[in-house]
C-alpha cells in the first residue's frame, strides 16, 4: 500500500506542512464538535424530554453495540488511513459513506488531474474532491430526505408506512449480509459465521431466552475465534481490504 506521507519535493515542504497543521487542527476541532452535537440529540431525548429511560439501559445498549462493532471502530480507521491520508480522515469519518462515495470521488479527481496516488498532489486532490462530494451530498440529503422525504411520509397511506416500519429491518439486513459476504471474499469465514449464527438464533436463544440481548455479541466472538482457529494459509498472506461495507 502506498502512503500519502511519503517524501515530497523539498520546495513544497513548508506550504504542505502548513496544510498539514491547518487540516489537523481544524479537522480535530470540527470532528469533536460533530461528535458532541451528534450525541447531544439523543441524550436530550433520553434525559430532558420526559421519557423515562434509566441510565442503566443506555449502558447495556452501549455494551451490546460495543461487543458487536468495537473491533470495527478501531480497524476501519486503520485500514482507510493509507488510502485517505491524514487530512481526509477527518472529513471521511464525519461525512460517512466512505467506500461507496468518498473514495470513488477522490480517485476520479486524481485521475482527472493526472495526480499519481501517494503524492502530495494526489492528497490535495482527494481533499478537494471530498469537499465537492460533501457539498452534493448535503444538498441531496436536505432536498430528498429532509424536504421531499418528510412530505412523502405525510402523504403515503398508513398501510404502506406500517409495512415499511415492520419489514424494513429484514430487507436492510438481507441485503447487507450478502454485501458483506461478497465484499469480504472469505468463504471459510462466511460458512463459519452462518453456522455459528444459525446455532445462536435457532438453538441457543430459544433454549436460553435470557441470552437474547447478547446473542449478536456471542455470535461475533465465536465467529472470530473459530475463523482464526480454522484460518487458511492463504488468509495469512492476503492483504486486508478495507474491512467495511456500506
Amino acid at each position, binding site marked *: 500500500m502506498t502512503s500519502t506521507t511519503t517524501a515530497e519535493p523539498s520546495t513544497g515542504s513548508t506550504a504542505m506542512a502548513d496544510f498539514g497543521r491547518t487540516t489537523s487542527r481544524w479537522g480535530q476541532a470540527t470532528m469533536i464538535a460533530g461528535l458532541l452535537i451528534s450525541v447531544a440529540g439523543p441524550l436530550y431525548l433520553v434525559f430532558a424530554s420526559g421519557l423515562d429511560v434509566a441510565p442503566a439501559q443506555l449502558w447495556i445498549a452501549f455494551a451490546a453495540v460495543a461487543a458487536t462493532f468495537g473491533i470495527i471502530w478501531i480497524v476501519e480507521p486503520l485500514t482507510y488511513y493509507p488510502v485517505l491520508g491524514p487530512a481526509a480522515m477527518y472529513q471521511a469519518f464525519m461525512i460517512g459513506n466512505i467506500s461507496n462515495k468518498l473514495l470513488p470521488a477522490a480517485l*476520479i479527481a*486524481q485521475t482527472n*488531474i493526472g495526480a499519481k496516488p501517494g503524492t502530495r498532489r494526489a492528497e490535495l486532490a482527494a481533499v478537494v474532491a471530498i469537499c465537492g462530494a460533501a457539498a452534493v451530498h448535503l444538498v441531496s440529503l436536505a432536498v430528498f430526505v429532509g424536504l421531499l422525504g418528510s412530505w412523502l411520509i405525510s402523504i403515503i397511506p398508513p398501510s404502506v408506512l406500517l409495512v415499511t416500519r415492520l419489514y424494513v429491518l429484514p430487507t436492510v*439486513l438481507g441485503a447487507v449480509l450478502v454485501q458483506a459476504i461478497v465484499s469480504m471474499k472469505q468463504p471459510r469465514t462466511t460458512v463459519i459465521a452462518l453456522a455459528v449464527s444459525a446455532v445462536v438464533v435457532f438453538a441457543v*436463544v430459544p433454549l436460553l431466552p435470557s441470552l437474547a440481548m447478547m446473542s449478536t455479541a456471542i455470535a461475533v466472538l465465536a465467529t472470530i475465534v473459530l475463523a482464526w482457529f480454522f484460518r487458511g494459509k492463504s488468509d495469512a498472506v492476503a492483504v486486508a481490504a478495507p474491512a467495511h461495507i456500506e
Partner: protein
Amino acid sequence: MHQPLALQPLTGTGPTDILSVANNPVLWICVAGVFGVIVIQSIVFMRAARRAAPSVDMSPQDIRTSFRSGAVSAIGPSLAVSLVAVALLGLFGAPAVLSRIGLIGSAAYDVSAAGIAASSMGAKLGDASYTQAVFAVAFFAMSIGGAMWMLATLVLTPLLRKGDAKIRSINPAAMAVVPAAALIGAFACLGLGELPKSGIHVLSFLVSAAVMGLCLLLARKLGKSWLREWGLGLSIVVGLTAAYLAAGPAVGA
C-alpha cells in the same frame, strides 16, 4: 405523550407514536449543527488546499477540476443513500435518519446498532414493543456508535501520521481474518435473527438478499458500478414491495 413509564405497559400497546418524538425540534437543531460543522470543515479544508496547491504544481484549474469531479461522482451515490434514508424515515424519523444514515454512519451499522439496542430492552424495532423510550435508547446507541468511530479516528490519525510502528506492524493475518469475521458474524446473526419473527420477515429477507446478490453479480458481469451503489436501495424497495403484497390483507391494503 410524555406519560411516565409507570403508566405504560412495558410491551404491547405502549405509546408507539415514534415520529412525534423523533421530530422533536431539538433533534432538528442538532441535525442543522452537524450540517453546519461539515460546511465549516469543507470551507477550511478548501482554503488550506488552495494555499498549498501552488507548492505542489497544482493549478487553480486543477483545484476546480478536482472539486467538480468529486461533486459529479457523488451525485449517484448520494441519491442512492437518499433512497435508503427515505425508506428508513418511518422507523427513525427525519432527524435521526439525516444525521445517522445520511451522514456520519451508514445504513448497515446504524440499523444494526438500533436493532441491538432495542433487543437489549426486550423490544423489536417497528412492532408494538417499539415505544418512544426504545426509540430514544436505539437513537442513543446509533449515535454513541458513530461517536466511537470518530473517537478512534481522532486518536489514531495523529498516531498514524507520526508513523507509529506498533500500529503498522499489526499481524497482517489477524487484520485479514478478524475484521471480516466480526462483520460477517454480526450481520449473519442479526439477519438470521429476523427470520423467526414471521413468514413475511423471511420473505422480505430472502427477496432483499436475492436482489442484492443479483445487483452485485450484474455489476461484476456487466462492469456497471452504479448497480453496486444502488444495490441496497433497490433491495429495500423490492423487498418491501414483496412484504406489502404478502401482508396486504393484514394491513388493510
